[in-house]
Structure formats: structure tokens, C-alpha cells
């Protein structure tokens, strides 16, 4: 019995870590869908957003409900700047060139964040619930953090809002059109630039959410930008263009990683978490290259 409970605890912890991966992966998917850019800077955007929020609150002492809209403003301004200074000039370039540009962008954001807000680890407290869920701990001796449940709820809400945004609004339709075919979208009068600013803004806000949750949990620091790398295997599992794929992929990676660490880790000396996700993705790729929700690609000549 106790053993089962332990297993359940591992799975739940994994699921909740998976939610975090999924949030970051979501930002990737949004941008990839709309602009075909594989945005390596998504992780650094999480860091940058969380740093900005923590920085504003620390320097001005303003409460979270003032600082959060301000940070959202910053992220939108950032999206605008990125479109203006980078994307606009790289239209029609190879995907690898765009990808490299986002690595450059990641460097710029990382350096600027450090210079503006300082590179020390910041505590981020915007009043999210923390600590264990007492009721479960008392009655079932079952440990879950409130924050993690909160994160799951937030993620669910975010996905719901995005789904409605994509399916029901005019902008959402335009976004899907752009994702299908840039030129065709242009020819029916959709402005690519506007779409890109919108999409990067949304990705920025998603990054802020991910950054806040992660930052509350373990402090705002450089390692936050590294979850971007963890989001890559998530994308492989879920497919680069599928929002549900990002969620499911994130959960699978989260749980798989925790299970591997707990059950395989002791056998090989631990720290399996470092590479397990990638190996899982790799194995998966060899069996099903198009991802969980992708369609089989028929090549034509």
C-alpha cells in the first residue's frame, strides 16, 4: 500500500513537472505554427519575463497586480521589437538561419536581463499559494505542493483560452491561415507582421506564466532558460505544431523522467533526469517520426 502511494506520488510530481514543460513547449508551438520559426529563445523569454517581474517588484515595491500588467507590456514591446529588428529582415530565409537568429536573440535577452536586473538569484513572490496541501498530507500522508496544483489549473485555463482564441476569433483564423501557407495568407490580405507581433506577444505572455510558476518554485535564475532545452523532446513527442501534443508530450516527459530517476537512477548513479527526456524522444522518433499527433508525411517529387 505504502509502495503504491509512493508510486502515485512520483507520478503526480512528474505530471506537475510535465505541466511546466508543456507551458514552455506551448510557447514554442505557437511561434512555430504562426511563423515557422523554431524559437530557441523561448526559455530565455521565460527567464526574462520572470526577471522583469521580480525586478519591478523588488525595485519599486509595487504590488503584483500592478507589476504583472507592466511586465505583460514589456513582453509585448519585446515582441514588437523582435519583429521590427529581427524577423522582418529574415523573411524567406532557411529555417536553420531563423533558428540561429533566435539563439542570438537568446544571448541578447540573457545579457540584457542580467545587466538591467542583476544576475543574482531572485525570489519571486506574487502571492501564489505555496507549501504542501495539508489535507492530503494529513489524511493520506500524500505530499503535493499547492503551487503545482495551481500551475496545472493555470495551464488548463491558458490552453482553454488559446483554443478559443485560435478557433473562434478572426485573428485566430488569420493565424491558422498563416501557419498553413505564408504566401497564400499574404495574398488574401493578412498582414504577416501584425500576426507575428501578436503571436510573439502571446508567446511572451505564456513565457511569463511559465516563468512565474517556475520562478516561485525555485527562484528566478539562469537555469530557468535551460528548460527550453527540455521542451525540445516534448515537442518531438507532441509534434511541432500541435497544442494538445505539447501538453500530452510535456506530461509524458515529466512522468517518464521522474519514474526513470526514481527507479533507474539508483542503478546507474543518478542524474538520469539530465538525458532521459532526450533518449525517450530519440527512441520515439525512430518509431514514429511524425510525432504523436502529426500526420504521416507523404513525400512528393
Amino acid at each position, binding site marked *: 500500500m505504502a509502495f503504491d502511494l509512493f508510486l502515485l506520488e512520483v507520478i503526480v510530481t512528474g505530471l506537475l513537472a510535465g505541466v511546466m514543460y508543456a507551458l514552455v513547449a506551448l510557447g514554442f508551438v505557437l511561434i512555430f505554427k504562426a511563423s515557422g520559426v523554431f524559437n530557441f529563445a523561448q526559455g530565455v523569454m521565460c527567464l526574462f519575463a520572470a526577471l522583469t517581474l521580480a525586478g519591478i517588484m523588488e525595485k519599486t515595491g509595487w504590488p503584483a497586480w500592478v507589476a504583472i500588467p507592466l511586465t505583460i507590456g514589456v513582453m509585448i514591446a519585446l515582441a514588437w521589437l523582435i519583429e521590427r529588428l529581427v524577423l522582418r529582415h529574415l523573411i524567406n530565409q532557411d529555417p536553420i538561419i531563423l533558428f540561429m537568429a533566435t539563439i542570438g536573440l537568446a544571448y541578447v535577452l540573457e545579457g540584457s536581463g542580467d545587466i538591467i536586473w542583476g544576475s543574482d538569484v531572485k525570489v519571486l513572490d506574487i502571492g501564489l499559494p505555496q507549501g504542501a496541501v495539508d489535507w492530503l498530507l494529513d489524511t493520506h500522508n500524500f505530499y503535493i505542493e499547492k503551487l503545482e496544483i495551481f500551475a496545472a489549473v493555470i495551464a488548463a485555463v491558458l490552453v482553454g483560452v488559446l483554443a478559443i482564441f485560435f478557433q473562434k476569433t478572426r485573428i485566430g483564423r488569420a493565424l491558422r491561415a498563416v501557419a498553413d501557407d505564408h504566401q497564400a495568407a499574404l495574398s488574401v490580405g493578412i498582414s504577416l507582421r501584425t500576426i507575428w507581433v501578436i503571436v510573439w506577444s502571446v508567446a511572451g505572455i505564456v513565457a511569463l506564466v511559465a516563468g512565474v510558476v517556475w520562478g516561485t518554485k525555485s527562484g528566478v535564475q539562469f537555469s530557468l532558460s535551460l528548460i527550453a532545452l527540455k521542451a525540445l523532446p516534448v515537442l518531438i513527442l507532441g509534434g511541432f505544431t500541435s497544442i494538445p501534443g505539447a501538453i500530452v508530450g510535456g506530461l509524458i516527459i515529466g512522468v517518464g523522467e521522474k519514474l526513470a530517476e526514481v527507479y533507474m537512477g539508483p542503478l546507474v548513479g543518478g542524474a538520469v533526469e539530465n538525458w532521459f527526456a532526450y533518449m525517450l524522444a530519440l527512441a520515439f522518433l525512430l518509431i514514429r517520426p511524425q510525432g504523436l499527433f502529426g500526420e504521416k508525411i*507523404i*513525400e*512528393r*517529387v
Partner: protein
Amino acid sequence: MNMHSSVNSTTAFDTSSQSDQDVLISLDHVSLSFGGVKAISDISFNIKKGEIRAIIGPNGAGKTSMLNVINGFYHPQEGTITWRGKVRRKMKPYEAASNGIARTFQNVALFKGMSTLDNIMTGRGLKMKTNFFWQCLRVGPALKEEIANREKVEEIIEFLEIQHIRRTPVGRLPYGLQKRVELARALAMEPELLLLDEPMAGMNIEEKTDMSRFILDVNDQYGTTIALIEHDMGVVMDLSDRVVVLDYGRKIADGAPKEVQSSQAVIDAYLGVSH
């Protein structure tokens, strides 16, 4: 074991092409589908050695799929393909290539980062054998081989009259010339069967005339068997020895250009019938 399999293939050979000893490739009851969509259903036809065989049909009739089946890019779910008298297993594209099947593409598929010369030299890849070690040193056999093949390539360049663009990156060439370079690359393989997928699409009259002349010359001088897809009926009727007509993945006519032209089924397919 070996004996057994060879016996098998002989039987297949006997049944599929009893009379025509000069058949190069024959497709029997070939069907190909993607998911639920049938691209080709139950098509049989053959290509004889040394002929120019045209495959025509309205858009979406399955012509390109047919070529893709012949050079092993798609694998039909049903039917057999007999190549040089032997029933062919499921074959990879590079195997088809080393068996002497070359190909040009509907949308030019050149190697854009390379010069005309390098593109054509790539077509010689199968004829070049020196190993990695010699390639690193590029002396002795490697250099000799490189020069021998270069001479061969220069012949083709001269034949197709593209000397002036030898060093130009192919991405910078106009469309008509790109098509010609693509033909050159295919010829560099010294193929037995050359598949041309709309070699004249998007060309003006002059370029078409040139290309027609090249195709006839290739057939004439090198004795290469040619299968081509083309929409320009004038060209098809002038060039080809025999024509096969596809519509919605089915064969609706097969024969000499004249016969095909007067076939009611063909006229219906192209002009439409009132239902």
C-alpha cells in the same frame, strides 16, 4: 537456395513477357494508394528497348506516381514490375539508379548550392569507385578517376550546349537552362531508361524545340530508352513511338500516337463528356 530463386524468377519472366524479348520494363496490374486514396489502379503497360514512350493524361491522372513507382520511390501495394526480364523486388530509389534508371523532375530538383559542373558530376557518382583514403589525398587513382569522369561530363555539356554556364551556381540559372542541366545530370548516369517528367513545362517555343531535339538526339545517339510525361500534345505526337493514356489512375488507351489520338475514351477524358 540460389537455384530455387533463379528458377522462380525465370517463371515470372516467362509469364509476364512471353513474346516481347525486347521489353525493357513491364508493369503488370500495378495498384498504388495513399491511405484510402487510389493513385493508380490496376495499370499494366510496358516500355520496349530503344523507344520513346509517352505517358499522358489530365492533371491528377497518376502520371508522376507512375514514374515514382518505376524508379522505386513509391512501392505499389499490388502488381509486379519486371525489369530486364526479371521480376523486381521492392526496390529503393538508389538501387533503381544503379540499375540504370535515371530521372528528371516536374519541379526542377537540382542541387542549388552547387555549380552546373558539380551537379552533373554528381550524376557520375555511381561510376566512381575510389575510396575515402584516396579521395583525401586526391592523387593517383582518385585524380585519374576524377579526370576521366570530368571528360565524360564535358562531352555531355557539349552535347547539350551548356558550356557557358559550367561554373555558374545552378540557382542563378533561368528555368529553361535548369531543365537542361537536369537532363545533363540524368544523362551523366548513362542510363538505360530515362524518365522525363514534363521536360518542357513552362518553356517557350524555342526552348521546346531545343529540348525536343535533345530528347531525340539522346534516343538516337546513346540508344537510351525514354519514358516521358508531357502535356503539349504536339510534342508528344511528334516525339513518341507509343503513348499510354491515364485518367483517374486508370489506363484508358495505349498504342501508337495516331491510334490514341482518335480513341473515343481519350477524347472524352480530355474534353469531358456530357453526362
